């Protein structure tokens, strides 16, 4: 037995997922600890080397400044026991259901504004609220076909939502390739765990996309639309297309004509019914958005409006990713679903709220300030690390554009042992589970992308900022697990009109059938059904 874990010191005031305290391993990780400890350091390093080597050979790479790098994956897996996973799974599905109802509402009649759950201006001032999407009824009533909800674990180990991604979340390809690579690199540990598989994702995605095809199409043609081989996520686009067995197309391969979309092939033009697009809204259709876009398809939006083609995810979803809207999501869950949120948000101050702003401006040096429409850790200022000059500059920018910023306390993300150089050290991680909505049910992939911040103490985890990844093992259910209970919304919460009448018993809700049982509610079948 080697001394691989000797001297491993969990960071103070931080939840380490493997070690409760020094040399005290949490139950779920006992097997991994035993297997890893059975290896010498040289052996472990050789296996880590194998991981990056196979990724280069297989072309599992991402683009960093024009250079192809193997996607970094750590040799120590991250485990999530089934009990904790239930909260993630139910909570993510709940959140996606609420965001779906929210998008449908704001691009429809806007009942949520009338009920004063969220101010109208918060939505309309978002740069991602697109008027062209108003009144467009997406086939199957689905706007969020795929969601990636970023979670972190706070110092108590509670999963909290950091941000929602319901535009074009990426990373799921690495969930699948990480699993295959790890089963080759660490077969011993694999054999000793019952790990829930992740390989069914492409099949689920294809089924959901087909289910949301325009009405009347019995055998829909699905394509994946990519910006091209130079996009940072091109590997993922190609992998998904390959595993779903559908065409990977670029904008120039498609032609929108007379409200229909066709693909150019060597045998002429063929109709396309569902476009799983990985191109941003802005670039999707030069007629409706940026005129200079060469990545899009002129006339695509018209075809979608005519109901002849499904764009997945729908145009205009970005407003739900807005970090200011994020602060309202717990209320939206209560409003649309009549339930208490399972996954709490990270505490957040809205800079546009004068009271919040006053509180924040006094303690800029203690807080994290985030631009509301930033993705991938861009533009984030971590107060305790910023210089005086940076803080002064930040203050000026906050005052100039309060709508553009939110503030959060510095959350010490949980840590997992990670191979750094020639030793294992705690490194901060987050988790992006992926959810697929086929219009009947929100399905959450048992796993997800665990991203690791490789520099010591670093809290921003993103592969564009030097992040790594871990294979994420969700363990199969144990007989001792208890079923998670969903609480109905607290007294006094504002509910959607469709829910209000049914507060006392059974009701037809705007989001499906809700049955009350002694204060517990359970959503049956469709969370936001087609019957409404």
């Amino acid at each position: 037995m080697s001394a691989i874990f000797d001297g491993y010191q969990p960071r103070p005031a931080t939840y380490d997922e493997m070690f409760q305290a020094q040399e005290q391993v949490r139950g779920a990780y006992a097997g991994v600890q035993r297997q890893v400890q059975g290896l010498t350091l040289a052996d472990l390093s050789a296996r880590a080397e194998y991981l990056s080597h196979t990724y280069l050979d297989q072309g599992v790479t991402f683009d960093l400044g024009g250079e192809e790098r193997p996607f970094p994956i750590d040799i120590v897996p991250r485990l999530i026991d089934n009990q904790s996973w239930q909260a993630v799974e139910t909570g993510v599905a709940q959140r996606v259901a609420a965001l779906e109802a929210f998008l449908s509402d704001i691009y429809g009649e806007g009942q949520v504004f009338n009920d004063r759950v969220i101010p109208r201006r918060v939505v309309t001032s978002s740069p991602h609220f697109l008027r062209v999407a108003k009144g467009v009824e997406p086939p199957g009533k689905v706007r969020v076909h795929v969601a990636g909800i970023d979670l972190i674990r706070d110092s108590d180990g509670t999963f909290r939502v950091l941000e929602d991604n319901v535009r074009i979340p990426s990373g799921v390809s690495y969930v699948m390739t990480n699993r295959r690579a790890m089963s080759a690199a660490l077969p011993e540990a694999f054999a000793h765990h019952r790990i829930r598989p992740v390989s069914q994702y492409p099949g689920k995605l294809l089924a959901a996309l087909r289910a949301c095809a325009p009405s009347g199409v019995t055998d829909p043609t699905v394509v994946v639309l990519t910006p091209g081989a130079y996009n940072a996520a091109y590997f993922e686009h190609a992998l998904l297309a390959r595993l779903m067995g559908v065409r990977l197309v670029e904008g120039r391969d498609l032609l929108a004509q007379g409200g229909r979309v066709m693909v150019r092939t060597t045998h002429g033009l063929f109709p396309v019914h569902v476009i799983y697009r990985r191109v941003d809204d802005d670039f999707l259709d030069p007629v409706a958005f940026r005129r200079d876009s060469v990545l899009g398809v002129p006339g695509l939006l018209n075809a979608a409006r005519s109901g002849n083609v499904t764009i997945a995810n729908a145009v205009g979803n970005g407003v739900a990713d807005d970090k200011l809207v994020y602060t309202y999501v717990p209320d939206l869950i209560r409003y649309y679903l009549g339930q208490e949120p399972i996954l709490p948000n990270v505490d957040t101050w809205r800079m546009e709220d004068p009271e919040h702003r006053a509180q924040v401006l006094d303690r800029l040096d203690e807080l994290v300030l985030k631009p509301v429409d930033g993705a991938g850790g861009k533009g984030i200022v971590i107060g305790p690390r910023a210089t005086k000059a940076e803080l002064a500059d930040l203050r000026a920018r906050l005052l100039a554009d309060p709508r553009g910023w939110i503030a959060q306390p510095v959350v010490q993300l949980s840590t997992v042992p990670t191979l750094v150089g020639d030793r294992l050290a705690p490194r901060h991680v987050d988790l992006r589970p992926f959810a697929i909505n086929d219009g009947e049910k929100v399905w959450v992939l048992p796993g997800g992308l665990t991203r690791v911040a490789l520099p010591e103490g670093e809290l921003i985890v993103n592969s564009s900022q030097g992040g790594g990844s871990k294979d994420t093992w969700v363990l199969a259910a144990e007989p001792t697990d208890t079923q998670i209970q969903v609480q109905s919304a607290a007294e006094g919460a504002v509910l959607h009109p469709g829910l209000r009448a049914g507060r006392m018993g059974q009701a037809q809700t705007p989001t499906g059938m809700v049955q009350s049982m002694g204060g517990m509610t359970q959503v049956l079948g469709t969370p936001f059904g087609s019957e409404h």
Partner: protein
Amino acid sequence: MLSRIAEALFWIGRYVERADALARLLDVYLQLLVEDPVIDREATCRSIFAAMGAQHDGVNDPDAVLRVLLWDSTSPSSIAFALETARENARRSREVVSTELWEGLNTTYYMVSNCQLSGPRPADGFRLVRERANLITALADQTQSHDDGWQFIVLGRSIERIDMTSRMIQMTTYATAPSASWLLTLRACGGAHAFTRTYRAIESPRAAAEFLLQDRLFPRSIAYSLGQAAACLEVLDPRQRRVGFGGDAARIIGRARARMDYLSLTELLSDLAGEMSALQSMCGEATEAVAHRYFEGAVAPEWLGGPL
């Protein structure tokens, strides 16, 4: 099949075949430079550049040949460039090429970009290229469905083979001792053994010419490759018709094929250099016709029969 994907597959076929043929050619001629005490090194290197149509304005020595035609990936005539471009084409068509084919191309690319071609012994580099090219070709044949996509790979491979074989034959017309030169060409085409099995060990330039130009069984002869290209085009455009052929590419290939099949050997040999450069321009025209018909998304006008 997407036009863009068809184009990528076509060029994978061409570039991999080019790397293979070029590796054999360089191997044979550089060995000759080492072995032959009286050879004019400068003239031989110049004729290699000329036959390959490579732009080179410096000293004509073996080092320059190795750089321009083997390892310098910035030189568009080099093997390194061909393999890198083949891999880039596969990267753009990754959902269509099989995982095995992709990994074959990708690992080859990393071997090449890790300077495995510019090592001290060029022969090692040539062997590596030949092995990898044949591995890739085999993977394309064994792991892809033989659908339209595969037809484009084979079409590219066949057209490149016609081009490269004609260039190798052209080398004999520069030579001062034709019979020795034909033997080299046979070896460069990987056909020395097959030739000996067919014609016995006779040193006859005429027999060698017949074998490389008109043999219907040897897979690198001009006639065989033309036949293969024609077969691909027929599968790609299977419309039944009573008159003519589908598209310009089929016509261009068919004309060259008839010439190769029906001209007598004497007629072909009377202006061998002219015939070979005609074949090379034919390859260019055929590629252009294929590109116009399949890669640019242009749809050929089709007659819809029946009563109006």
